[in-house]
C-alpha cells in the first residue's frame, strides 16, 4: 500500500493496535463505486472529526428494560 491516505490510516491503526485495538470493521456503501484511497480518506476524515471534537454520544433513549 503506497498511497498517502491509506498509509496515513495504516499508521493510525498501528498506533491504536499498540493501545489494544484487536479488530476494526467498516460499513461502506456502494462498494462498486468506491476506491481504496477514497474510503481511506473518508475514515481519516472520521478520525479528524473525532480529534476535533465534532462528535457526541449516540443514545436513542428507547430502552424498555425493567
Amino acid at each position, binding site marked *: 500500500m503506497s498511497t498517502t491516505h491509506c498509509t496515513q490510516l495504516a499508521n493510525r491503526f498501528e498506533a*491504536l493496535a499498540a493501545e489494544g485495538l484487536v*479488530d*476494526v470493521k467498516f460499513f461502506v456503501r456502494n462498494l462498486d463505486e*468506491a476506491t481504496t484511497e477514497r474510503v481511506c480518506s*473518508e475514515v481519516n476524515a472520521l478520525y479528524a472529526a473525532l480529534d476535533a471534537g465534532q*462528535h457526541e454520544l*449516540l443514545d436513542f433513549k*428507547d430502552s424498555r428494560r425493567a
Partner: protein
Amino acid sequence: MTDSSNGTTWVLSEKFEGTFEKVRVLQEHVRRYSLAPDQVPVSIEDLQWAIEDVYRMKISKVLVDFDAEHIRGMMERYSDGRANVYVRSNQDADPQQNLYWRRFISVKEMIHIAIDEKDDFSPQGSETIEELIRNHTLEALKPAKSEIQSEALAELAAFELLYPMEFRARDIAHSLPLGSLAAHYQVPNYVIERCLEPGYMKMARATWNEISGHGLGGLNSNP
C-alpha cells in the same frame, strides 16, 4: 440495488446458521428483561445492553460529524473489553430516514461484537478496506473472504434483529406499502426492500426453521 454493499456475497451456510443462532440468543435475552418484549420498533439501547451483557463488552456509540460518500460507520474492538461504534451524522436528507439509518448502522456495527470470531479479527483496517473493495463481488463458486463474509453476516443479523421474521411474514400477507413499513419498524427503506425479497425470505425462513428459532417453513415454502 445501488446501496447494497454485500447483496451478492456468498456466505458459508454454517456461518449463516451460526449468525442466526446468535441473533436468537440476543432476541431472547432482550425479551427476558424487557417490559414490552414484542413491541416495535426494536429498542437499540436494549439490543446494546444485551450484546454487552452476553459478550461482556462495553460499547460506546458515537455520532460523528464528517462528510463522506461511502463510509456510513465503523467499529473498533479493544482487548480490554471496550468497543467503539462510530456513526456518521448525515446519512440521508430526509430526517426520518436519517434516524432510521443511524439505527440500522448502530446495530450492524454493534453486532460484529457478537458474530465475529477471533479468526475474523484484524486491527489492520487499511488492509481490510482494500480487501472489501477488491473482493466484494462474487467470484465463481468461491466463498467470500473473511472480511466480506463478516460484513454480509452483520448486515443480515441487523435485518433479522430490526425487522424480525414473524413480522415480515405477517406484513407480506397484508401487502403493506414500503414507506409505512419503514416508519413502523424505523428502518431505512433499503432494509424493508432487502428483507422482503423472495430469495432472502426463503433463505431466512429455512435457516430459522433449521435452528428451531422462529422458523416458519423450509426452502420450498412460499416467501
